[in-house]
């Protein structure tokens, strides 16, 4: 059991990070803290995807060897030598999406701050109720 936990530490880290982010999004009353939680949550997913592409035993990135017509460009490609590039590419796209989400969330926070002069959720709700 202990061996299993240690050998998959990156997956445990992803679950832990995700729970921390989830807690911050749900329980924190400050909007910026919620945004930070959202970022931790999303980063955990990046960690998960990148973990799935790793192979043990000195693997490298596909473009480092046998590429760009260098010596040995005509060798057959042995996939066991390379980390899976696809999750990395997917995560590049996901990072772009997450940055856009962060941007929109912060922009909405600015709108809220200009209107209510606070970023505490309770105080905002109070001032909406007061009309």
């Amino acid at each position: 059991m202990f061996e299993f936990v240690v050998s998959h530490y990156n997956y445990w880290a992803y679950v832990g990070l995700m729970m921390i982010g989830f807690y911050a999004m749900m329980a924190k009353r400050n909007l910026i803290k919620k945004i930070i939680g959202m970022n931790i949550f999303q980063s955990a997913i990046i960690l998960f995807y990148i973990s799935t592409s790793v192979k043990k035993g000195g693997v490298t990135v596909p473009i480092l060897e046998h590429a760009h017509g260098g010596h040995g460009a005509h060798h057959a490609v042995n996939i066991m030598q390379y980390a899976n590039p696809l999750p990395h590419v997917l995560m590049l796209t996901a990072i772009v999406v997450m940055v856009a989400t962060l941007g929109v969330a912060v922009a909405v926070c600015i709108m809220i701050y200009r209107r209510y002069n606070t970023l505490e959720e309770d105080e905002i709700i109070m001032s909406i109720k007061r009309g």
Partner: protein
Amino acid sequence: MIAQIPILIVVIPLISSLFCPLIGLWRRGLCYLWAIVALALCALASVNTLFAVIANGTIHYRLGGWAPPFGIEYVVDHLSAMMLVIVSVISLIVAVYSKRTVEQELPGRVVYFYTVFLLQVTGFLGIVITGDLFNLYVFLEIGSLAGYALIAIGEDGAPLATFRYIVMGTIGACFYLLGVGYIYISTGSLNMADVQQLLPQLYDSRVILTAIAFLLAGLAVKMALFPVHVWLPDAYTKAPSATSALIAPLMTKISLYVMIRVLFTVFKPHLSIELLPITDIMVWAGFVAILVGGIMALAQTDFKRMLCYVVVAEVGYIVGGVGLANTIAIKGAVLHILNDAVMTVGLFTVAGIIMYKTKSHNISDFHGLFKKMPFTMFAFVVGALSIIGVPPTCGFFSKWYLIQGAVIAEHWAFLIALLLSSLISVVLFFRVIEIGYVFQASHGGNAHATGHTATIDEAPLSMLIPTIAIALSIILIGVYNQAILSNIIAFAVPRL
């Protein structure tokens, strides 16, 4: 050129959204026309695709000529062709309708409104047309992000409602992404058709169970299924009228479409229905959503908020209908996606007109509206009758198929929920009709309403014509529902 039409459906609104701010720099007023031309072209392409699909069957389009599963593939089958037409035609109608209400509610932000509007439509269309799981996530986020922006510019309280929607929506999208990740690590593929072929050997794997749980949980947030609907009423009530007319009918329906795709295309119906108790849970989720949505709608004094809870209940219809898992119920659920999109857009356009004229969406300000705007209220009554389920409006037929499906599945609780929901809708809408018809404006309750009564008359034609068109199409879809069923939906339902 004809072969490129599937990609044009997505590319036209995307490119025109990029050019919209540039055109706005030159002539502000042109943005409206530009959006309409783009969406009209898009609607033409979608209708053309629908007829092509009806004539020749599923269309596969390879992006950049890369063969699937390595490249991204766009797949248009009967279900997605129908959804493409729903999205593009409704967004065209809302765009035509939006001119006056955007000028009134969002002065000085017209250019950006239409830019984001087109981006939103791009997201919706992309979700529907793509045959790739990760591509779907990207489009889901394009649609959601544009939606956040469109809602945040609404009335007081909209930014906070939007912020909550962002938090919930991000959780939903991230769960979907995680589910896709689990599918990818167990199959090595992201193409839906390919995944369907590769998965059956793995159906007893725990990774796949986790994947399907994450996918459905994420989509439940996006489709506002009870109890994760809490973001919806606030966000759609406080959004500008044109935004809620666009997003309220489409966003939830698109997520329901994705749910049907995941259940029956990515996984085989065999897994979703027989091996796992997913569909049983879905029927009960739908049951609770219908009842809670209806009861919460009864408690509202705000017209738009009431409609939002009606949307929550309608989501329950479709989730429950799919969960009944027999051919007639799923047919009814798919037909209800079409019907509910049309009914909801009809009611929200009416809410927008009333907001435009009376500056309020509170039901108590509706006094004497039937006399002052008879055509608008005609559209409202048609929409209301359709939600209640009175023939020959379209709402009756999908409800009828759902009831038949519930009888075949012998799921009496869901049947009772369907019938109760009709009764609740009767109370709900006749309350509004009573206030609008019986009470005269001179007796109007609060000073706010009476202050405006002198100026309230029929809506401008640019708003009225789209609204009446929707009301007529509610009746037409009802009358021709057999043609729609036998030509389109019969092929969209999986063989069970």
